């Protein structure tokens, strides 16, 4: 039982046509297995987080009670992307599991919305946000290694508090970015195979093998998103992550949570004494 379905083209070529649809269930089961293992670990085995104490003094009173984390623009992007992503997943996979409806038009409309929102995000993140805040840095790598060593009972210094985003968050963003680019780029080409308002249909744009590989990549990225999104929603509703989730709704997090989890020297917030202009450091 392969993960790719093959067919013989009219020219006698053995070509892939799409993924095997059982991968939908593999993705769901993988996500559920991760959830269960993680929930059990957190409930019964996880220790209280330990962070290295910061030698530099920090005047917490200078912080606002609500620390800005995400601007309205960034939040709008997130929720538009989330809505289009869910619409894409439902329109792609519900028909494959027996819920039949006219899905193609909804799918490419949602895909167009996702593409536009990602283009906006690239520009917004590159020029109007702290671009590097979402990418792992050396401190993340060093702290990750220390956390791994401590997990296995070895002696290692405690990690520093997080910058704006924990390493897991950054890695998740990287996975979503790669998977998202895969579905968007293949999806744009696949729109040449159906009737849309954007360009004339051209099924001969690529050869059968290239088209087949494109469908396979689109499918693999699609089922990958099933796992990624289930895991994302799981973390969003975990009790210890709720302040971060709330930040994506209201744009801020409490000063206490900020001080508990984040390192002011790695994610600086403009203090109350500084002028208001440019004081919102959240993206």
């Amino acid at each position, binding site marked *: 039982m392969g993960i790719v*379905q093959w067919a013989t083209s*009219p020219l006698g070529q053995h070509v892939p046509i*799409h993924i095997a649809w059982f991968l939908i269930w593999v993705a769901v089961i993988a996500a559920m297995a991760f959830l269960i293992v993680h929930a059990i670990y957190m409930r019964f085995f996880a220790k209280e987080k330990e962070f290295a104490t910061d030698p530099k003094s920090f005047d917490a009173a200078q912080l606002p009670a609500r620390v800005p984390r995400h601007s309205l623009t960034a939040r709008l992007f997130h929720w538009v992307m989330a809505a289009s992503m869910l619409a894409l997943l439902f329109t792609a996979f519900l028909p494959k599991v027996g819920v039949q409806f006219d899905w193609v038009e909804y799918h490419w409309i949602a895909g167009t919305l996702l593409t536009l929102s990602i283009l906006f995000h690239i520009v917004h993140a590159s020029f109007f946000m702290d671009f590097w805040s979402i990418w792992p840095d050396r401190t993340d790598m060093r702290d990750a290694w220390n956390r791994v060593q401590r997990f296995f009972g070895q002696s290692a210094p405690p990690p520093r508090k997080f910058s704006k985003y924990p390493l897991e968050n950054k890695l998740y963003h990287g996975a979503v970015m790669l998977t998202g680019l895969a579905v968007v780029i293949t999806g744009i080409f696949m729109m040449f*195979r159906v009737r849309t308002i954007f360009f004339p249909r051209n*099924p001969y744009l690529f050869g*059968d093998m290239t088209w087949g590989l494109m*469908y396979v990549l689109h499918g693999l990225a699609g089922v990958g998103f099933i796992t990624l999104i289930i895991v994302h929603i799981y973390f969003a509703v975990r009790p210890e992550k709720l302040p971060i989730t709330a930040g994506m709704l209201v744009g801020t997090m409490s000063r206490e949570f900020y001080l508990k989890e984040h390192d002011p020297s790695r994610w600086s917030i403009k203090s109350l004494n500084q002028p208001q202009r440019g004081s919102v450091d959240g993206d």
Partner: protein
Amino acid sequence: MAVIRDVMPAFQLLQPTSIADAQKLLENQGHEAMVLAGGMDAFDWLKDRIRKPRAVVDLSGVEEMRGIRALSDGLEIGAITTLTEVVNHPVVTEHYGLLAQAASLVASPQIRNQGTLGGNVSQDTRCWYYRAGWPCYRAGGNICYADTPVGRNREHAILHAERCVAVNASDTAPALIALDAKFVIRTPQGERVVNAEDYFLGPEIDITRMNILKPGDLLTSIRIPSTWADAQFFFEKICDRNVWDFPLLNIASAIKLSADAIQDVRISVNAAAARPLRLKAVEDAVRGRARDASTGEMAGKLAVQGAAPLQFNAYKIPLMRNLVKRSITGVKEASWA
């Protein structure tokens, strides 16, 4: 590809004698089963070796599914009743002439002697790319070979094409829709009765199926209510040859008149899309109007709104427009003024 003809692949032949047994066998075999009624569709698939089912469920021994029975409110026709029996049945001929006429135009006498009513409405599409075993959308692939710049698509869809442009080729289906027939289906959950137009599926809903039958489902009979008995009927089939050919388009209408006005009407066209289309917008537009050429003209124009021709089938648009016009006025081409 279909290079080995007439040598069917090996399969298990199952010959139930009751509807319950037949349905159970289909349920047990699931996707691996093929239904055999008259064999006019099934044997093509088998002899071309395009489909290689594990089991073939032969319905010819299920007597419950054969014959035409009078109901208190109409008729019930068993799904494996032959088309010849339908054509020759006195009640069908007298009161439901639309169906008799449609059935009489299916293929050839030999095929009508063997082909069944259930098989005629449930047959697969005749798109040759699909039937040749090419990996098109309908076969589970990712392309429609007919909808390419050089695809041979003279017989294909002008309406409701969604990736796949194949059409439904049944002659009796539009007649049954016009007669407001109900299809009786035995499913693993029990009996289900659906309106004729709801029996058929377009590619926008499921690109691999022509009707709502799922593995384990069995069409057992077709009920025709007396609502449209003795109405004014019109059926016309356009095809390349007068015998043994599939429709390029066909149309069926049933009209009730009140004085000179159209009191009620049902119109259905087939071979224009992947499913027979009931033209509800046209029905609504002509209801209450005089049955004359101007109403027919208006109906024809309305019917083809949204039609999107392919490379070689633009002729179907004026053809459908004229067929709808004629189906309203009840005048065939030869006598058209």
